[in-house]
């Protein structure tokens, strides 16, 4: 009887030995994820036209995203990560409602033209 109990105790101790550090690591990972997510949340990209009472949903569908921008039509709204005034922030096109906006796409930073 005591031998079995010893065996059980040893197994329990071994498990604890493995489980505790793993749990601590998970907690660390959790903390790290909190830090990362406190910076800037992922931006939704192109936004689907809002239906009444529903929040703007991401229009990032895997199937072909159609070109929705047409001169003379309402510009497709979107949300993007941005670097502005020395800080990271998420910006939406609709933040500029009521003002003129010039939206400039360009190939890349550190390129030549």
């Amino acid at each position, binding site marked *: 009887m005591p031998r079995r109990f010893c065996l059980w105790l040893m197994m329990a101790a071994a498990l604890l030995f493995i489980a505790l550090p793993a749990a601590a690591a998970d907690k660390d990972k959790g903390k790290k994820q909190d830090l990362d997510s406190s910076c800037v949340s992922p931006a939704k990209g192109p936004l689907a036209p809002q239906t009444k009472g529903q929040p703007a949903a991401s229009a990032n569908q895997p199937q072909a995203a159609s070109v929705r921008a047409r001169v003379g039509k309402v510009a497709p709204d979107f949300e993007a990560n941005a*670097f502005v005034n020395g800080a990271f922030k998420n910006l939406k*096109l609709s933040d500029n409602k009521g003002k003129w906006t010039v939206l400039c*796409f360009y*190939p890349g930073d550190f390129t030549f033209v």
Partner: protein
Amino acid sequence: MGVEVMAVSTDSRFVHKIWQTEELAKMVPGGVPYPMLADAGGKIGTVYGVYDDAAGVNLRGRFIIDPDGVIQAMEVLTPSVGRNVTELIRQVKAFQHVRKTGEATPSGWQPGKPTLKPGPDLVGKVWKEWKPDQAF
């Protein structure tokens, strides 16, 4: 002129930060004064019809959007040729004038030059109001 500018490329916000601090701030004091947006994967560019899938970058597209959110103008260039900012400013002023007065601005219009008042009376009479050399 009360215009908000947003610059968008497929670069991340981190690359934007470094480009601003390392190069743009040396070209222009304080760097560029407008937000630099990150369009990872060209998702926004695709919706605007300017994403070059093969190259993985956005083309040089520029959209003028009015206060109601309607696109009034777009211009798209391949990467090697830069934009003409003077023309952009001219167009914005023209669209602002049109929005305010309902008049039309003829080719090459600059603030102070004659505008046209569209209507049935103007049909066939444009030659009286405007000459082609006014476009330059």
